[in-house]
């Protein structure tokens, strides 16, 4: 149990480190099962946060990047959909960095400069969700055919699927 507490301390250490470095930014911290610390931050802070993770905490393993379409529940009706990007890191314990992008022309800085292993994950999100990654060295579709010119297939799938089922 002591070990688990120590591990959870790793996630706390990240948040503390970030708060010290960026005192005027608010970070929301959550936990996600199983043992995952989620830190929600503005997209502009992603790269500095990953640097803190890598340099100060020694976490370098990016498991994957999940993109998800979420309806903004914060009352900002004019933006409608949000694209959430979840960067799952792992070092004995999961640490997820979460950034939220506007549904219209989502754009974020690439992580490939720091972690080359992120290249395929970003390409997949690019083709499936239409998120542009600034500075990505090779932003082409990964799975879809070269002549694919329809909308990104996962883009509004959540809403469509929910509508098709008649979910709330």
């Amino acid at each position: 149990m002591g070990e688990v507490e120590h591990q959870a301390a790793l996630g706390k250490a990240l948040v503390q480190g970030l708060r010290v470095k960026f005192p005027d930014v608010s970070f929301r911290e959550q936990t996600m099962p199983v043992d995952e610390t989620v830190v929600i931050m503005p997209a502009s802070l992603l790269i500095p946060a990953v640097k803190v993770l890598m340099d100060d905490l020694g976490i370098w393993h990016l498991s994957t990047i999940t993109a998800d379409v979420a309806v903004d529940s914060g009352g900002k009706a004019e933006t409608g959909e949000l694209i959430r990007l979840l960067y799952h890191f792992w070092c004995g314990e999961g640490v997820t960095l979460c950034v939220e992008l506007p549904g219209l022309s989502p754009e974020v800085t690439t992580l490939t400069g720091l972690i080359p292993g992120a290249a395929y994950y970003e390409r997949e999100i690019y083709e499936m969700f239409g998120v542009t990654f600034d500075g990505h060295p090779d932003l082409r579709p990964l799975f879809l055919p070269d002549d694919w010119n329809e909308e990104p297939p996962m883009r509004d799938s959540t809403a469509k699927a929910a509508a098709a089922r008649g979910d709330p």
Partner: protein
Amino acid sequence: MSKLVVPIGPQHPLLKEPLSFRLTVEGERVTESAMRLGYVHRGIERLCQTRTYVQNIHLLERVCGICSHVHTTTYCRAVEALAGLELPPRALHLRALLCELERIHSHMLWLGVLARNVGFDTIFMYAWRDREIVLDIMEDLSGGRVSHAVNVIGGVRIDLDDAHRDTILQQLDLLEDQVEWLLGVVEHERTLQARTRGIGVLTLADVRRYCVVGPVARASGLDIDLRRDDRQAPYDQMHYEVPVHDAGDVWARTLVRVKEAVESVHLCRQILDTLPAGAVSVRAPRRIPAGEAVTRSEAPRGEVIYYVRSNGSDHPARVKIRTPTLTSLITLPDQLRDVAMADVSVVLSGVDLCIACADR
């Protein structure tokens, strides 16, 4: 010498799954390689959103043709975490048992494929013959050789009695002899080593940069294993070693995998010996409370990660799957640079590709 562009795939005797490489070859040297994925992209993540949690188990079992059980296990763990279910220990043991059997199966199959690709058909035949023992055990347990349909949300749907357990233990003894014999061959056979040593080298730094997982990472000296590091039940009660090698070539990957198969046999035996009594499943609700969960498992090829988000209905709002093959694929352009044409087959075999996994 003039340049040739040699296509490997989507159909090629080397690859059993569709993946396309275009290699620029000068003489026998590969100077450039371009890869194309997506020939078996089935849109599983999208399909998951249109099916119920229970239906998804059957869908996700088909992400991979070899490590089918570990996918459903990881998915079920995520859903169970969302629903707040506490699994009976017997269910966890049985899940782990199948995971380990699957690991042996996968590594034996891989050894056969590697041997076949370096022109060593005898080892191919022996490895696949011995793999049949694992398949038999799995068939007796679940009714399926490769797709088991064992997991349900809240546990497993199989159980075994003492007589069955003794039978499996006997089969494991035979299997252990065979796997150790194969390990001896791999360690001592010189032509096999001549083909695999120094080929497809990934340094520890490469492996970290590309976030590589599983046996490929362990063969480059990176000591990661989620069974141990994530302290998952029931592995936290088991004793086993995680083979690590620091050479980083295909030869090291071969050793790591075959040793892992031996360790998995030991693990299976421990799991069966310490099998707790009790129920094998708990009742799960049809609608899963809203929330999100991330689970990771050590598949035969390395870390599998699932992200599941629920919106409170009986359908998941989002299921994200990352399979270990994707991490290996990204290293291939590096590994294929400036190798001999003859070694392309060794390099491609060495990382244990599962294109169905990668494309999803």
